């Protein structure tokens, strides 16, 4: 599914990843844990095909991360909830989800159930995203990811900015996705909650993944 070996990735002149390893099996839910600046987001972005490898090797869903073509294929195949929600403030919730799901070559029919699942199908659907609270915005971004029906979900801090109900919602989505055969890689500062959710924890320290850190 995912196999990253000794990956070194640069952010400008800074080696955000300095030799990270990651192996994900199909259907696994794995939590990336570590302090701020450890490289969790970079590892997620690497798996999404957004940044190149300087050293090491990477394979995601059969695509080679070292090549441009492989990264491009990867980007089209994964569902990433990034730090930025990538929503257009001037458009309504529904317009945003519909635009991104078309752009992602997802099915139009999936939009309505996704909105409903994330509690956006009532009044909120026609509210411009700029007028939403942080949590509502996060839920809209999640609806876009849900519509993608990706085989690999990459969630960067999906719990951040959400209330308890929202966090339960995220956990439910992750469990359902895993049950449907998808692989989920997420980072979170809600350690207790995320540890319950994940099958496995990968610790990230200073851009590396020391083997001793894992527990289940």
């Amino acid at each position: 599914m995912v196999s990253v070996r000794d990956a070194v990735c640069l952010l400008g002149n800074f080696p955000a990843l300095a030799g990270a390893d990651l192996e994900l099996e199909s259907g696994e839910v794995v939590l990336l844990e570590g302090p701020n600046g450890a490289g969790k987001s970079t590892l997620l972005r690497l798996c999404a095909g957004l940044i190149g490898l300087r050293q090491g090797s990477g394979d995601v869903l059969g695509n080679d991360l070292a090549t441009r073509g492989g990264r491009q294929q990867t980007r089209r195949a994964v569902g990433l909830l990034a730090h930025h929600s990538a929503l257009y403030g001037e458009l309504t919730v529904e317009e945003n989800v519909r635009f991104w799901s078309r752009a992602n070559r997802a099915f139009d029919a999936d939009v309505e159930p996704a909105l409903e699942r994330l509690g956006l199908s009532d009044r909120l659907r026609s509210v411009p995203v700029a007028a939403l609270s942080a949590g509502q915005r996060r839920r809209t971004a999640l609806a876009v990811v849900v519509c993608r029906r990706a085989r690999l979900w990459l969630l960067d801090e999906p719990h951040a900015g959400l209330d308890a109900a929202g966090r339960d919602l995220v956990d439910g989505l992750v469990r359902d996705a895993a049950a449907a055969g998808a692989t989920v890689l997420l980072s979170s500062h809600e350690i207790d909650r995320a540890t319950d959710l994940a099958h496995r924890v990968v610790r990230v320290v200073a851009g590396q993944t020391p083997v001793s850190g894992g527990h289940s």
Partner: protein
Amino acid sequence: MSPPTSTGPAATPTGSKLTRVLGSLSLAFLAIFLLFGLMLSPPEVSQREAVRLFYIHVPSAVIALYLAFGLTAVGSVVYLRKRSTFWDLLAWSAAEIGVLFCAFTLVTGMLWGRPTWGVFWKWDPRLTSTAISFVLFIGYLAVRQLDLTPEARSSRAAVLGIIGFLNTIVVRFSVSWWQSLHQGTTLNPVDTQMDGLHLLSFFLGFATLALVFSWLLVHRFRVAWLAHQAGEAGLDRALAERRAEATGRTV
């Protein structure tokens, strides 16, 4: 490939046999050119003494717009196809020196225009199009400094290098066309009949500037290469530091 010490203790790191040959040739040609350009060549009928500026004005323009920016375009194409650092840095080096020669073209053009036309600036096609391309390639140098990853800087600069060169040709063509509508026959250096010593001085000026251009290009490329390598070495150090961070030790 030989160790740097082979270039001798006094030599600069970017110097080599090649640059020494190019450098000596440049200096020799410069001396001969100055002799002919400033002394032996007689004043021309219509341009008078200003013809001496023309000996460096036209070569600078041709070298900047076609040789330097053309080289930038070629280097950019090869970089985009092969991702070769060599061609990327060569394109950059040629653009920087091209901008310098563009500036010389503008200065000598204006200094030539004042005594010949009576004004510093006339909407002469060569001058006008050089000014436009000058700004465009200053933009290229700005793109090389963008706050993006080195790969992004290089590939975006390469796109601009190719389009900028094509655009330079379109600018030159359209400005000439525009001018041909407005003015009949103003004094244009290329139209004037030159013979004997004028022609010889002109070719000497061309050869001198071309030699100086190639000497500068080799040095500029090597500076770029050293800067690239220094950056790589810096990254290796940063990587070692980052690795040591994990174990709590410092390097």
